[in-house]
């Protein structure tokens, strides 16, 4: 039996399912397109051609143009970059808070742990979407506020999960050994807990990204997120929904891109869970 690191083994299990590889490939392609596409395009996302107005697909504009003669393909790729950026950054913020909070609560234990978890219990039923809407209205509709606001409210589940993992880990022998050889709290947290919870963190983060992207799109759709003329997929869907009676493609194209991305993210998230979770692994072998 050749030895492979847990990460590499998980990667192999992930790629064994063709659909996971397909979803990952789609996402990589999409990210590349969203990053480099707008640069290579002949148009900028807010460049207008008022004589053209809304036109169907053509050689010059592959996915057509909107009422202001803006190139849809360029706008979708630009909007995709904004949506993906919000999705990834907000997830990173939420994961960061959740992991630190959960690890500290789990590793300290005792009174601090129960106090910290009581706080999570109290925060759980909060109407966070209302808070985010208010924050957007009050603090301003700027890019960084969107992902900080979303990130600041989405960390609770991560904190619970990570704490559970740390509780299961901290009484194992390697931790006792580390403690016996004089390792401090932060050393154990950083060197022994973090590497062991990282798989779980990856799973839950990947499952969080589509939810966060939906939240951003919802805010933008309500006119409270990304502000025109800048575009995200939520903005494009809003503009498309307003014009769908006459120009249905303005709704369909961004909607298709968004749905396909959510689909790929969901498939990949499920795939990662199966790849990292030993319980579902044993089911596969059985």
């Amino acid at each position, binding site marked *: 039996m050749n030895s492979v690191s847990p990460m590499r083994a998980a990667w192999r299990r992930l790629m064994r399912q063709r659909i996971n590889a397909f979803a990952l490939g789609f996402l990589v392609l999409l990210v590349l397109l969203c990053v480099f596409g707008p640069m290579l395009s002949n148009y900028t996302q807010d460049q207008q051609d008022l004589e053209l107005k809304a036109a169907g697909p053509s050689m010059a504009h592959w996915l057509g143009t909107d009422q202001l003669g803006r190139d849809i393909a360029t706008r979708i790729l630009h909007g995709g970059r904004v949506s993906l950026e919000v999705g990834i950054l907000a997830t990173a913020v939420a994961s960061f808070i959740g992991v630190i909070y959960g690890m500290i609560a789990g590793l300290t234990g005792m009174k601090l742990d129960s106090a910290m978890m009581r706080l999570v219990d109290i925060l759980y039923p909060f*109407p966070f979407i209302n808070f985010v809407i208010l924050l957007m209205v009050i603090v301003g509709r700027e890019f960084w506020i969107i992902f900080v606001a979303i990130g600041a409210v989405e960390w609770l589940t991560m904190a619970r999960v990570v704490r559970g993992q740390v509780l299961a880990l901290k009484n194992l022998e390697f931790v006792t050994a580390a403690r016996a050889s004089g390792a401090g709290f932060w050393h154990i947290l950083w060197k022994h807990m973090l590497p062991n919870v990282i798989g779980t963190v990856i799973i839950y983060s990947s499952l969080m990204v589509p939810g966060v992207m939906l939240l951003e799109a919802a805010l933008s759709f309500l006119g409270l997120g990304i502000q025109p003329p800048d575009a995200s997929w*939520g903005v494009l869907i809003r503009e498309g929904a307003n014009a769908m009676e006459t120009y249905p493609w303005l709704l369909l194209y961004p909607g298709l891109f968004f749905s396909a991305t959510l689909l790929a993210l969901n498939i990949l998230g499920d795939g990662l869970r199966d790849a990292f979770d030993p319980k579902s692994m044993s089911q596969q072998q059985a």
Partner: protein
Amino acid sequence: MIRFLVSRTIQGIIVIFAVICVMFAILKSSPGGPFRSERAISPEAMAAKMAHYGLDQPWPVQLWRHLVHYATFDFEESYLFAGRTVDEVIVSGFPVSAAIAIPALLIALGIGVPLGALAALRPNTLEDRGSTLAATLGICTPSMVLGPLIAMFFGLKLRWFNTSGWFDTTDWVLPSITLGIIYSAYIARLTRGSLRETLAQEFIRTAKAKGAGDFAIIFRHALKLACLPVLNFLGPAAAGLLTGSFIVETVFQLPGLGQFFIAAAVNNDHALATAISVFYAALIVGFNLLVDILQAWLNPRIRLQA
């Protein structure tokens, strides 16, 4: 049981208290007063208005008054809808949201549970793959895309229903279908997962060994246990639907609570924004409590713990 109820009620009150305080903090951090967006009015009129709503007081007094209002169920006047108290505004918007939420939940359960059960009963068959694919597609179609598409097809093409406003007795249909489809996708997924897990357990094998048929196994034995995760999802989902879906109410231009909240937020109506958030939180707390009690009743192994 009584200890459980008392302790959960206290926890609920703490949650409401915390929601009021957080809302207060967010709203007080807003630059300018609640009437800044209005036409320029004379300083005297502004001062009179501020005094009318008690906004000339120092903030601890304001917060205290706020809390007293909620503690005594004697609610404040809305800033935006002058002359009406916030509970009157909520009472006027709630029936609209509820008229959409209740059919939506029924649609979601009516589609989701059978679809998920079918997939769980015939694992790795065409039925399983098909229903799982349908559920995944449903989860990946955001309501802001599905809503306009449904409005376009049934409203503008077939002209069966209105696509905006709240005038006819059938205006609830399209919004309910939109929400129902999306929630049914989540319910199908949860049902499939938990029913499969339940069917693998030993008491099901015992039931099969005794000669119980498929139907009896599902309805007498498995579904009771398998519906626990679905209930867990339904609690907060029902609370969210009853306080109005922001997106669907925007798409179909419905005067529900979601629209009232956005109007309150945009117009700095602190009283109404707080009241709707508190209402939402109270519903979530209430439904979670209900779900916990139901779960303990369905699965005697669950002990109600404070």
